[in-house]
């Protein structure tokens, strides 16, 4: 079960090597995203779209809001 994190915990996780992933569509990511986030849209998330992610490191996912 993924752990919910508050905004203030993100820098600490990134300092520990976490990977930040925006799962919104490409256009929304390209318009504006969190620093150093990569884009893997939810609609395409699968074994073939995550080779650049390291399974040994934490991953933080985010979208637009909590809804």
């Amino acid at each position: 079960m993924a752990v919910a994190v508050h905004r203030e915990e993100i820098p600490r996780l990134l300092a520990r090597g976490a990977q930040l992933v925006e799962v919104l569509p490409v256009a929304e990511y390209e318009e504006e995203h969190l620093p150093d986030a990569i884009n893997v849209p939810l609609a395409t998330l699968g074994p073939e779209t995550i080779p650049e992610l390291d399974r040994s490191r934490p991953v933080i996912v985010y979208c637009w809001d909590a809804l």
Partner: protein
Amino acid sequence: MSPRAACRLEALGFSAVYDYTAGKIDWLAAGLPTEGPAASTLRPGALARTEIPTCTLDDTVATARQRVAASGEDRCVVVSGEHIVLGVLDRDALAGDGHAIAAEAMRAGPATVRANEDLSALLERMHRRNVMEILVTDPDGRLLGLLHRDDADVVMTRPHGAPATAPD
């Protein structure tokens, strides 16, 4: 959407998955840096003055008055230990009994806006209601700064392409 992505990643073998459930809107509302073309959009958080006088509930009006005098502002923001906005000591309150504590003299629950609010719409509301300044807070209510309408008006009327820097 992000909970589903987190589930999917766990199913794909990721063991340490975190879900920033509040998402990009929360990050923007806190005035934190972003990347991409829209990152240069003028927003209240970028234009707000951050060096503004503050005091706590237990500080005296006299203490707040000294801080305001040294700042160039005309009000003191009353905050908690976590810097959450609780109230404001305005000119009238600051001119009152210096021995009173902020908790007694403040105007509680001042209006606030988030750092990412649409600046044009906010300015239109401020003009319509004759509001000269408004507090900017993050989604947790923590003070980020004070937006002066005049500062924003100057930036919004600047010729296109001119540098847009936050006021001192």
